[in-house]
């Protein structure tokens, strides 16, 4: 939880600064952080806005970057079966990559944990940390100090989550193919690199899984 916050809050700061630097008002920037709540998509959207991209391209990019939330939703749904409707909204509204990763890791390790309340507690803390980081970034604007590479905390967190997720050959292949395609597809139109990479990684793992079985 602490390293996730240490990573998420500076990421929020970077995103907050990027939003106001590209010309969004303070209200628009904060509104975007609350309503979209997805740093990668927010960065992609303000980057395109700053380059005067057409409205439909900007919207499509933001949505495509966030399409992975559907995959996260599918992946976490089996852990929350038979949930009341209100709880399903809670789980969905708070769902972000780090919360998903933290939760499924914990659920796998501790079978008797109260999943709903664990998820809610962690999710609210991460949400507040993200919003706080964004507010600081918006206030600081473009004056974020560049000396310390805080943004590198984000990939380090994902390395820390990725390594335990690699359990066998198919999961190793998923990571290897996903990572490689993401690097190679960095300049794909509509910022589709992450989505294509994830699909390729899962596809490769499925093929390997079928071959092994």
């Amino acid at each position: 939880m602490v390293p996730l916050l240490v990573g998420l809050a500076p990421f929020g700061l970077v995103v907050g600064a990027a939003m106001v630097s590209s010309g969004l008002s303070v209200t628009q920037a904060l509104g975007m952080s609350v309503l979209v709540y997805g740093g990668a998509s927010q960065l992609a959207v303000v980057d395109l806005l700053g380059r005067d991209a057409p409205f439909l391209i900007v919207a499509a990019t933001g949505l495509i970057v966030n399409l992975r939330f559907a995959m996260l939703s599918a992946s976490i749904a089996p852990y929350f079966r038979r949930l009341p409707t209100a709880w399903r909204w809670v789980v969905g509204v708070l769902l972000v990559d780090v919360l998903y990763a933290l939760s499924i890791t914990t659920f796998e390790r501790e079978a008797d944990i109260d999943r709903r309340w664990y998820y809610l507690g962690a999710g609210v803390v991460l949400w507040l940390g993200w919003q706080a980081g964004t507010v600081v970034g918006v206030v600081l604007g473009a004056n974020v100090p560049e000396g310390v590479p805080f943004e590198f905390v984000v990939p380090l967190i994902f390395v820390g989550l990725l390594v335990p997720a690699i359990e066998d050959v198919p999961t190793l292949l998923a990571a290897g193919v996903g990572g490689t395609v993401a690097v190679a597809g960095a300049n794909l139109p509509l910022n589709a690199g992450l989505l294509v990479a994830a699909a390729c990684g899962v596809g490769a793992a499925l093929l390997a899984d079928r071959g092994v079985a």
Partner: protein
Amino acid sequence: MVSSGQDTLIWVLVAVVGAGTLAFRLSFLFLFERLDTVPPRVERALSFVPPAVFAAIALPSVLPLEAVLALSPDPARLLAVVAAGVVARRTENLVATVVVGMGVLLAVRAV
């Protein structure tokens, strides 16, 4: 730069992306309730999503395409990630992973 005349358009954009993103987040939380059981093959496929997505998010920050094409990867980032990976494998501790990774990054850059 966003011009002042675009205010409404920005809010429409935020609303569209926000609503779509929320729909993605909620999608399977509601869909799965209509299925009695999750087919084992679907569950197996879903278990491949986290490693693929985590690697796809992490690797481009470590090894940007420009650095690969120029054959000039940043040794500080590479060493930091390798060290973090070793710590993650040994300890499965996120704090240790991030602290060691950042420490190696700063140490190599200071050399």
